[in-house]
C-alpha cells in the first residue's frame, strides 16, 4: 500500500528536518553536559533568534546565510552574559534554583516577544526558498540541503574546538570534575558562561538555517525545544553524538508518523517516545548515567 516512492522521500525529508533538530539539541546537550541542568530557556532563545534572523532580512536586507555570521557571535555573547550575570549569580549555586531561573527567563523572553510582535506568524521570501535539486528518485529543497550540510559542519567545528583547544579542554575538565578543575586554576564561572554561550550560538545558527523555509512567531521555539528535550533524553543527556543521531532518528520518526497518523498526532508520537525513554532507559542510548 505504501510504495517506496512515498516512503523514501519521507525518510529523507525526515533526515533533513532531523539535522536542524540535532543542532538545537546540540546546544541543549552541551549545556547539560557541563552545567548539569536543563536550560528551559532554550526554546525561547530559538524564538528570539528566529525573530533576529527575520529582522536582519527585513530591515538590513541580510540573507539568512550571511546573517548567521553576525547572529552566531551576538547570541554567543548574549548566552555568555545571561549565564555570567543573571543565571549564575541569581541561583546561588543551587541546581533547583538554576532550573527555575532558566524557566523565568524563558517566560520573560517568550512573552516579551508576544508583547512586542503579537502572536502573528511571519515569514521571509528568499529567491532560493523553492529551488529543488532532482536526485532521480526524489526532489530535495535546496535550503534544507544547505541546512543538513551546515549542521554537520557545525558539529565538526564543535568537536575540533572541544578536542584541540585549551578552552575545549577546560570545558571538558569542568564537565568531569568541577572542583578539581577549579583547583587546577580554571575559572569555572567563565567556563559555565562560555558553554552557555556556545549552546546559545547553536540556536542562532539553527534559526538562520530554518528561517528561509520556516515561519516565526513568539512561541515557535517551544515546538522545537520539546522535540530537542526528547532528542537529548533519547541520545543521552550531555552526549554530542547522541544528540546528532537522536536528532536524525526523531526527524524520521516525526516524518513517518506524520505520514501515517496526520500532523497533530505526529507530535504525540514524539512525546510517547520521550516518556518511554525516560521510564525505560533514562540514561538514553549514549548516556553514561542519569
Amino acid at each position, binding site marked *: 500500500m505504501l510504495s517506496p516512492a512515498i516512503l523514501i522521500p519521507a525518510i529523507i525529508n525526515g533526515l533533513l528536518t532531523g539535522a536542524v533538530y540535532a543542532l538545537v539539541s546540540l546546544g541543549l546537550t552541551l549545556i*547539560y553536559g557541563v552545567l*548539569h*541542568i*536543563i536550560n*528551559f530557556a532554550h526554546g525561547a532563545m530559538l524564538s528570539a533568534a528566529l525573530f533576529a534572523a527575520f529582522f536582519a532580512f527585513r530591515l538590513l536586507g541580510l540573507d539568512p546565510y550571511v546573517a548567521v555570521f553576525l547572529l552566531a557571535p551576538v547570541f554567543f555573547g548574549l548566552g555568555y552574559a545571561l549565564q555570567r550575570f*543573571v543565571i549564575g*549569580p*541569581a*541561583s*546561588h549555586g*543551587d*541546581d*533547583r*534554583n538554576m*532550573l*527555575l*531561573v532558566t*524557566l*523565568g*527567563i*524563558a*517566560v*520573560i523572553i*517568550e*512573552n*516579551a*516577544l*508576544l*508583547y512586542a510582535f*503579537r*502572536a502573528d506568524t511571519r515569514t521571509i521570501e528568499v529567491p532560493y526558498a523553492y529551488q529543488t535539486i532532482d536526485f532521480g528518485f526524489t526532489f530535495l529543497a535546496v535550503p534544507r540541503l544547505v541546512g543538513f550540510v551546515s549542521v554537520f559542519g557545525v558539529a565538526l567545528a564543535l568537536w575540533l574546538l572541544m578536542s584541540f583547544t585549551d578552552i575545549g579542554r577546560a570545558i571538558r575538565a569542568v564537565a568531569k570534575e568541577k572542583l578539581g578543575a577549579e583547583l587546577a586554576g580554571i575559572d569555572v564561572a567563565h567556563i559555565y558562561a562560555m558553554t552557555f554561550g556556545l549552546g546559545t550560538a547553536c540556536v542562532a545558527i539553527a534559526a538562520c538555517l530554518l528561517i528561509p523555509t520556516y515561519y516565526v512567531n*513568539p512561541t515557535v521555539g517551544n515546538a522545537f525545544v*520539546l522535540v530537542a*528535550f526528547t532528542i537529548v*533524553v533519547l541520545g543521552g*543527556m550531555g552526549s554530542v553524538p547522541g544528540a546528532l543521531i537522536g536528532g536524525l532518528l526523531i526527524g524520521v520518526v516525526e516524518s513517518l508518523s506524520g505520514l501515517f497518523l496526520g500532523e*497533530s*498526532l505526529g*507530535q*504525540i508520537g514524539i*512525546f*510517547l517516545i*520521550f*516518556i518511554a525513554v*525516560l*521510564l*525505560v532507559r*533514562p540514561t538514553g542510548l549514549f548516556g553514561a548515567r*542519569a
Partner: protein
Amino acid sequence: MRALAPIAAVVMALAAVPLLVNSNVVLNFLVVTLMIALAGQGWNILGGYGGQYSFGHAAFFGTGAYVNAILQVRYGVNAWPGFAAGIAVGAALGGIIGVLTFRSGLRGSYFALVTLAFAEVLRIVASVAPITGAGVGTLMKLDLRAQAMQFQSRAAFYWLILALVAASLVIARLIERSRFGVWLIAVRENEDAAKALGVNAAHVKLGAMVVSAAITAAAGCFYVQYFLFIDSGIAYGTRISIEALLTPIIGGAGTVFGPLVGALVVQALGEGAKLVAGDAPGLSLIVYGCILVLVIAFAPHGLIGLIDGARRRLSRVAKLGAAHG
C-alpha cells in the same frame, strides 16, 4: 489544636471580607487569588516540602477541571460528586506519574522535564479529542443553584474557595507536623542520606505527589464551577503551571502560608501591570517571569523567609541592647 490557631485566625479574618467589601471587582480578584493559592498549595506539598520541582502542575489542574466539566455536561452528573471525582482523578493521575517517575529514580532536571512533558501531551490530546470539545472547549450550563454548586453572589463563591484553601492549609500544617512530613523534608534536604537512615524515599515522594495533585486538581474543579468554561490552553497551558510554582516560591516554599502570601503578591502585581501598561497579551507573564528571577536571586526563601530573617535579626539586636543596657 494550637498548631492550627494561626490558620483559624487568618481564615476567619478572610471570611469577614465580603461583609465589609461589596465590590464585585474586589471579590472577583480575591476569588481568583484564592484559587491560585490553592493550586500553589498543591505544588508546595511536593515542591516546597519535598523538593521535587514540577514544571507541569497544569496536568492536575486541567484534569480536575475537565473531569468535573465533562461529567456534568456529558453525563449529567451532579456538580458536587463531579467535583469530588475531579479531585480523585487528579490524585490518581498524580499517582500514575509518580509511580512511573520515582520508580526509575528520576530527580531534579529530569523530574521537571517529565512533568512538563505530561502536561504538554495532555494539552495536545485535549486539543484534538472529541470528549473535551477539542479546539472549541467545553462550556458548562448556567444553573445558579447551590445544588449545582453555582451561586448568584460572588460572596458565596468566595466562601467556597476560602473553605477549600482553609482545608489545604490544614493539610499542609498536619503534614508538616507528622512523621511523613519529616521524612519528606529529609528527602528534600538530602535524598541519599534520608535513604541511608531508612526512609523509603520513593514511597514518601509518591504520597506527596498524590496529595499535591489532589489539591491542585481541586483548584481546577473550582475553575470550571466559577468560569463555566474550559479549553486545552487554559487547562494544560504553561500559565497555570507557572502560577502554581510561582506562588509558593514567592511566598516561601515549604511554609504553610507561603502559597497564600505569594498568590496575593503575584495577582496584585499582575493586575498592577495591567493598570499601568494596559491589558496587552503576555504582559502579566513578563511580570511573573521577572518576579521569579528576582525572588530567587534576592529572597531564596520567599517573603516569609525574608520576614523571619528580619525578625531574627531584630530580636538579636534587642538582646544585644538589653545585655549592654
